[in-house]
């Protein structure tokens, strides 16, 4: 199982918080609640948090599972460099974002959730975790060796595996005649 990477949980929590904030905001605006301006803010903040948190970071160890179609988000988030890589920045960003959510009931839940996410991120940052993008692994191709000088000693077509098996008691019978002549390239 290994060391706990708190940022993974913080990411799930923050994404959920973003969705809850967004939903609360939509309810607040749609119902034109008292102080619906805060709800409008919550829509923007929730959407922003969702976009920021959608691309899951890479795990230090083991396989990282991407969210469906997160690649283009990953590229965007990655382009901010150290700002999005550092979890202290995220912790304080979320802490700041969540504050106005506390001013109306519809967004309180999102606000508290985001606050909790911010705390978990802070813990992750203190433990020295960082956001690393999950990028498709570029297949490392082996360099093609120098052109083969010698012709293969046993070129295809080869006999099936059973035929190839050497029988200790009958070494003669185990041998077979190569159907193709093997000669060195005479050029």
């Amino acid at each position, binding site marked *: 199982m290994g060391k706990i990477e708190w940022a993974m949980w913080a990411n799930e929590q923050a994404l959920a918080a973003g969705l809850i904030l967004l939903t609360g905001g939509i309810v607040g605006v749609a119902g034109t609640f008292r102080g619906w301006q805060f709800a409008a803010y919550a829509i923007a903040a929730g959407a922003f948090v969702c976009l920021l948190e959608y691309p899951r970071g890479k795990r230090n160890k083991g396989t990282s599972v991407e969210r469906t179609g997160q690649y283009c988000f990953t590229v965007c988030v990655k382009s901010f460099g150290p700002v999005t890589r550092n979890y202290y920045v995220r912790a304080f960003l979320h802490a700041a974002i969540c504050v106005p959510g506390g001013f109306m009931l519809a967004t*309180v839940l999102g606000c508290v959730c985001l606050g909790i996410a911010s705390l978990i991120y802070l813990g992750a940052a203190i433990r020295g975790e960082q956001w690393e993008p999950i990028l498709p692994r570029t297949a490392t191709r082996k360099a093609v060796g120098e052109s083969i000088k010698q012709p293969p000693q046993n070129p295809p077509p080869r006999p099936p595996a059973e035929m190839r098996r050497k029988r200790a008691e009958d070494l003669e019978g185990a041998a077979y005649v190569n159907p193709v002549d093997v000669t060195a390239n005479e050029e």
Partner: protein
Amino acid sequence: MGNMIINHGLTSFILIVWMGINIFLFVWFYFFYDLGEQFFYTRHLLGSALAWARAPAAVLNFNCLLILLPVCRNLLSLVRGSFMCCGRTMRKQLDKNISFHKLVAYMIGLMTAVHTIAHLLNVEWYNNSRRGEYDGLSTALSDLEDTDNTTYLNPIRTLEITPTYFALTSLAGITGVIITLCLILIITSSMEVIRRSYFEVFWYTHHLFVIFFIGLVIHGAGRIVRSQSNLDKHNFTLCKDRPQDWGNVPDCPLPQFAGGFPQTWMWVIGPMFLYLCERVLRFVRYMQAVRYRKIVIRPSKVLELQLVKNGFKMEVGQYVFLNCPAISQLEWHPFTMTSAPEEEFFSVHIRSVGDWTQKLISMVEELPEGAQGPRMGVDGPFGTASEDVFEYDVSMLVGAGIGVTPFASILKSIWYKFKDSDPKLRTRKIYFYWLCRETHAFEWFADLLQVLEKEMEERGMGDFLTYKLFLTGWDQSHTEHVMVRFDQDTDVVTGLKQKTHYGRPNWEKEFEQVRKDNPSSTVGTFLCGPQVLAKVLAKKCAKYSDVDPRKTRFYFNKENF
């Protein structure tokens, strides 16, 4: 279609019943609140949000009742035991307990969202009515009060407070916020990625369920949803248009309201009690003495513990939960037993994969020769599908990676039964598929296979067990190694008679072969491995079984971790 019914019929039936009850509760309570006369005035303030809040609440009650049951593992063992007569299809349902637990949890999540949104609207509209922003009737209803302040309708009693203040100071509001937060934390920490990789986070956060249930039980105690209690004296069809006359004319006395009786506790008290029993039983099991018979440290950091406990009786393929108080008082870890029931001890093989296992292994390594290991609590055994292995004519066992462990016990036990010619053994033939990336972590298992192979050969029953090894992770140097040793009798990797295959098995071919070799048999397919493989095998089982009971039929079983 016929194949689908054989393999998934009962599961689908259970799900349909569950969904049916959910829909019934939702619709029933929706119309109860949407049409009920006693709620006429309440609806006047709240509109349809009243019914939209109450209908999910009823569904929530039902699902909170269900959510604890699938995780009572001792209860499930008990039920499984009493279903012995009812055949394996019934018992197989009990192995899907965690899937059902998740399904119920999704329903709780969804209904919580609807319930919360509806109540957000309710609070806002109560508040607006209190401020007199709607029609005269709404204002009049909000102003209703008596000297004891018990027959009011609008729970927001003063003008000064904000909805947030109300939500955080009323019993229903504050418990609602707290238990929703608990629920959110539980859900976010149960996501696949967290649960699989950081089990401790998942495990500890899940214990917020205690707060969740306490909050849930008292959530309704504030009796905030109020209905009219003097319908016979105060007829709203006559009086609703003249709120200014209320109390002054004999036809229209002041309407009186009372809160609904809190019901949630009646729904959840039973499961809560059962779960409490479950935890008490776990504690009792934890206190029982366990003796070490033997501690073996195998190569590649695998620890074998052979334990003895009084009154402990196991079946094949079952697992136990171990708790080592020296490492953590609270953590219970599941381990599949690798011994056969015929042996007088039970054993587990523990691989070093995480903090807990690492600590245990290093503790054991430091022990002096012949000493007893650290104190160990054992809960179990708990049953899974593989105890049905002997009841099929032919068994196909598929182990992937670490998933071979339950089969250690099965293979051993089959061997014991075979030796003693146990009449209970229906099995005539075992196919065993072992898929893994690399074998050296499982050398102990290859050892076991080797012993079995030798003994079977000695008794001339070599064709009883057919096993195939599939190595999925291999590279060029490996291939060369294999090619060089091609003509050796035993395999390079495992030292077994059967050669290792490379790459993944071609299931079509394997199933075809099994069907051809065993016409008119019931074949049990048992998997201990990843979900992806489970889907493939489940599909193949459905595809290759015949509806005709006289022909080959495949039943799919999956182990859960």
